[in-house]
């Protein structure tokens, strides 16, 4: 049932991916900037340039180029990066795990923090606690993630240098891991020291990504939670003799999460988009950082590959949200 739902949604996503591929392919070729000019030494002869253009297939028409690229892409070959001279596939696969770990870590922080803010605000409704949470969410929401990145860097990296502010892992540590999912592997292998160092490096960029999302979740969830607290079933739970905490966490929160998930869903995709700048700021070796370099170098094959990966991530996130939504709401499950 769920497997079929996932498969059909992924099939429906295929046209989206094709559309993204076409759009990006045309766009990067229409905007000014020549990848060959970026890569060769000044003073190269026009003959050399023409030869290189031929080598990368850039001398053909755009539809022709697309047909060639798409044919190879279907076979899993997304071409070779012009600036890094490695296959796009291997570059993306090497960098994607760190971005995924960062995004998931940030999401977990955002959900935990946002839920805590909402529950705290509702528990202290009409009192100072509520005003404080409202002020905190308002503030966190009005500051964008890259400003948070700079602020956090300043406070925890410079004023009180408690946390590392660049990279993914201390350069002196060689974990010797088989996968690129360092944090997952470190935890599975019980390498506590390495995991600790990885988390220390993740904390600031993840927090910068998470704070605006946490504020958004906090605000939306708080208002839907406050509404749930007025429902008859909450009154009945009170009359059954349950404590306020138990009622909020055990009765109301799940129902309140249903509208909150649909209202904050789009924000999760913003978080993935946010990784691009945040990774750059924290010199974090993920695909976002790679994407910025690829754009600067006009590395067409790499840009195309990366944008497809981002599009795929957006699709997966939306699919995940739909599944969470259905899991939370029993009324949707048998539809």
């Amino acid at each position, binding site marked *: 049932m769920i497997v079929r739902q996932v498969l059909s949604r992924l099939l429906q996503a295929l046209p989206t991916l094709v559309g993204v591929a076409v759009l990006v392919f045309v766009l990067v070729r229409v905007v000014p900037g020549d990848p060959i000019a970026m890569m060769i030494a000044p003073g190269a002869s026009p003959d050399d340039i023409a030869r290189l253009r031929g080598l990368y297939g850039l001398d053909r028409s755009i539809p022709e180029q697309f047909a060639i690229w798409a044919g190879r892409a279907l076979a899993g070959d997304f071409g070779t990066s012009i600036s890094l001279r490695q296959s796009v596939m291997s570059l993306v696969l090497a960098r994607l795990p760190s971005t995924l770990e960062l995004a998931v870590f940030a999401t977990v922080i955002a959900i935990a923090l946002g839920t805590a803010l909402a529950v705290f605000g509702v528990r202290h409704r009409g009192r100072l606690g509520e005003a404080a949470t409202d002020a905190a969410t308002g503030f966190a929401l009005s500051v964008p993630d890259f400003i948070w990145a700079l602020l956090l860097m300043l406070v925890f990296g410079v004023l009180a240098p408690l946390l590392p502010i660049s990279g993914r892992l201390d350069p002196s540590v060689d974990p010797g891991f088989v996968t690129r999912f360092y944090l997952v592997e470190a935890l599975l292998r019980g390498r506590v020291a390495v995991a600790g160092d990885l988390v220390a490096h993740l904390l600031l960029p993840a927090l910068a990504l998470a704070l605006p999302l946490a504020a958004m979740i906090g605000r939306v969830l708080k208002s839907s939670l406050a509404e749930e607290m007025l429902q008859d079933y909450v009154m009945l739970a009170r009359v059954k*003799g349950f404590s306020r905490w138990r009622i909020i966490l055990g009765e109301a929160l*799940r129902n309140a999460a*249903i509208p909150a998930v649909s209202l904050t869903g789009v924000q999760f995709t913003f978080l993935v988009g946010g990784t691009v700048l945040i990774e750059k700021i924290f010199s974090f070796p993920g695909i976002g950082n790679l994407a910025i370099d690829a754009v600067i170098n006009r590395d067409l094959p790499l840009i195309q590959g990366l944008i497809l990966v981002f599009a795929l991530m957006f699709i997966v996130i939306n699919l995940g949200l739909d599944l969470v939504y259905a899991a939370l709401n029993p*009324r949707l499950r048998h539809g």
Partner: protein
Amino acid sequence: MTVLDIAGLSAALHGGRPVLRDVSLVIGEGEVHGLVGMSGAGKSMVARAVLGILPAAVRLTAGAIRFQGRDLVGLDERGYRRLLGRDIALIPQDPLSALNPSRRIEAQMTDVMRLHLGLSARAARDRALVLLNEVRIRDPEAVLRRYPHELSGGMRQRVLIAISFACEPRLIIADEPTTALDVTVQQQILVMIRGLQRRHGTAILFVTHDLGVVAKVCGRMSVMHEGMVLEQGAVADIMAAPGHAFTRALFAATPRYDRPVEALAPVPAAVLADIAAAAQAFDAGRPC
């Protein structure tokens, strides 16, 4: 023995406007007491005061609510939590909204027993099955696995009634338990509540606007308007000879099969004016 003894209970909005005026009412063990009145008469306010769930804008200004001899006025939340669900339970008005839409019936039936009776999950489940049989639900095993939206309104009200009897409370507050139901289901539910009440020896404060319901299930009754109890006594006596003009007017305004619809009359303005004057006199005599 007296289960509930409400004595001289008055309540007012924060602005000072009284909502309950010197309400007194006694319910003995195993007795069903009907609290009748039009909407806004203050009958639900009495029910909420007993349960300690008055709206934030309302506070009690005088009187006592003695449950098994112990005054509940001023009881803190912790004290209420030990009492509610175990010794005092509620049958809510609207069965459609009183069950949590995202929890299975089993969870919503067993939680209260596990909390107050300390039952294991299995023991609570067994007791839930017994209770569902008592409220005449067929295939209780299947119902336990259901979510509220998969049950009809009547089924949900049966589940809620089963929940209210789960911990063998001494007192149940039934707040218009049949108002939201289909007329054909109303009758069955009333008969069932009456049967359960007799078997378990539970006292019930039965809040309703329907005199027909009172006649079917209640032994004693109080008629309320403007937050005051106008008349109180055995249902049979009041039905035979209503003492207050308002009660007579209420009877005249109740549809009956043996009378044409044209015979229905609204409560006369003069009667309402008299009651309003009495309420004002009460407020003037004892300003809040």
